[in-house]
């Protein structure tokens, strides 16, 4: 049944049409939000959202009056910070898992897998208490730490699968030529899994950018990320759907664009473990 040639008419009916319907379901809500966001506020409730007479009025209002610029900056700082923490801690760990055998390796690997299985609600309460004690509430650092709880295990998982794809003989060749272990990691392995590192980094960026519950609980006043800002819009501007949907589009934009850029590599990395493991 896979990749078989069907007659055109039948293919249109059994493949193209259902696929198109599923895509309408998938993209419809997003497009609807976009169309709403470019509709003039006064026309929205009389004529309904429409693409005719599109205006960017909602977007300019969003940045002028609501101060969305600051929220974008907060999100950017938190996300970049998480990427740096996540990647820098996971690269050496992943190399160790991928290249050495040592006592306790299985348990340590399992530990990093298990972390992802615990519900977030189990962590959010003690992290709040911890940040309160440390006086870190409402700082970027608190959010970076909270996001790292997810980012570190995830990127170790991804990096191990990328590094396993690089032949060990390359490290050995480098060491024959006089490199140390760390030298081999830096000069041979890292450049080769560069694309994998970029994909992992972008994935961490996206999840941190999209994160909401930590941002709400541990931040919210001084440090207000874009997701919290969007949610606040729902409360404050109850009826201004034009403004709110514009906020949604802006909030979703960076993640969507980045995701479409790296999706191929990312998905191959994600699915590899599941298909083969």
């Amino acid at each position, binding site marked *: 049944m896979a990749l078989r040639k069907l007659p055109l008419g039948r293919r249109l009916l059994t493949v193209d049409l259902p696929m198109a319907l*599923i895509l309408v379901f998938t993209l419809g809500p997003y497009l609807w939000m976009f169309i709403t966001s470019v509709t003039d506020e006064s026309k929205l409730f009389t004529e309904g959202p429409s693409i005719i007479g599109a205006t960017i009025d909602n977007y300019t209002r969003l940045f002028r009056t609501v101060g969305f610029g600051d929220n974008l900056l907060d999100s950017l700082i938190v996300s970049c910070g998480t990427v740096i923490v996540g990647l820098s801690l996971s690269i050496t760990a992943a190399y160790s898992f991928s290249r050495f055998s040592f006592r306790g390796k299985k348990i340590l690997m399992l530990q990093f897998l298990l972390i992802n299985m615990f519900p977030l609600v189990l962590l959010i309460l003690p992290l709040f208490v911890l940040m309160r004690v440390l006086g870190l509430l409402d700082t970027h650092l608190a959010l970076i730490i909270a996001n790292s709880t997810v980012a570190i295990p995830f990127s170790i998982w991804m990096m191990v699968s990328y590094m396993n794809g690089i032949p060990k003989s390359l490290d050995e060749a480098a060491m024959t030529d006089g490199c140390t272990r760390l030298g081999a990691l830096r000069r041979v392995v890292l450049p080769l899994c560069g694309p994998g590192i970029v994909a992992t980094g972008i994935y961490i960026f996206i999840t941190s950018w999209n994160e909401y519950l930590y941002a709400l609980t541990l931040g919210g006043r001084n440090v207000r990320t874009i997701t919290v800002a969007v949610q606040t819009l729902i409360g404050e501007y109850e009826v201004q759907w034009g403004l709110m949907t514009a906020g949604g589009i802006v909030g979703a934009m960076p993640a969507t664009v980045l995701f479409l850029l790296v999706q191929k590599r990312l998905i191959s990395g994600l699915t590899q473990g599941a298909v083969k493991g």
Partner: protein
Amino acid sequence: MPAQDRNPTNRPGPKEGLTGTRLGRSVLPYAMLSPAVIVTLAIVFLPMLQTAWMSLHDYVLFRPNDFTFVGLDNFIAALQDEVFWISLKHTVIWIGVTIPAQLLLGLVTALLLNQNFPWRPVARALIIIPWALPSVVIALMWVWIYDSNYGVMNDFMLRLGLIEQAMPWLANPKTALGAIILTLTWQGFPFFAVMILAGLQSIPRSYYEAASIDGASTWRQFWHITLPGISGVLVTSVLLRTIWVANSFDVIFVMTGGGPGYSTYTLPLYAFVKARTNLDFGYGSALAVLFTILLMGVVMVYLRRTGKAVQ
């Protein structure tokens, strides 16, 4: 599981340079691991233990000096709490409907994406968009869709003649949970589609060729080749997705906050709301611990069952 033990034994390379001493060789793996391990211990495992510890105490945040040990009182209180049972019931419905719905839609999508049609790459790229969107934005746009006065959902259903008059989907206790499940299905099915597609592409095409020479119908091919071929992927992705959905109470939190009444309360949401609005961290922690134990129990049973089925 990631492909962990593809290279089970590691003979040291020809020359280990400065770290080439015996001691260096045995310490190096741990040295390279230690930053990640120490940090995760500090920010994940200790806090989790602290949750367990808090759950045994009477701990309300605005009375910081009052931290009395109460044993299992919080847990006993939970079992006698009506809202706990309501939340548990919703949690079962929420996960029990969302996951199969996502799986089914994902399977259909993956089977379609595995066919030959000209715009396949475009469809494949676009299908994943919901997965990349922030859950807050997802919640926002579905609240707008479900809006009782101007929402497109009412418009759509009225035109098709499925309903008689506009419905307040999220404000009606009867429809609120269903509306949220539809949103979560929309959010999560692309994940299944992508995972299953990867599984489908790993099935050798010669199997299908052999089967069709032997005269097997499309349905029999699906049942005897496709399904066994993707069973491993199905098992893994159902597991991952269950854990994710169990985590994703943020969509519910933004869309309804649990309301109207308790009609969209789920266990993680209840724990979060208890701690956030009532500042009752002791009871909130107990609920979180209970939910974790229940989830782990389900995961264990699931792994045991499917482990046998797959083999």
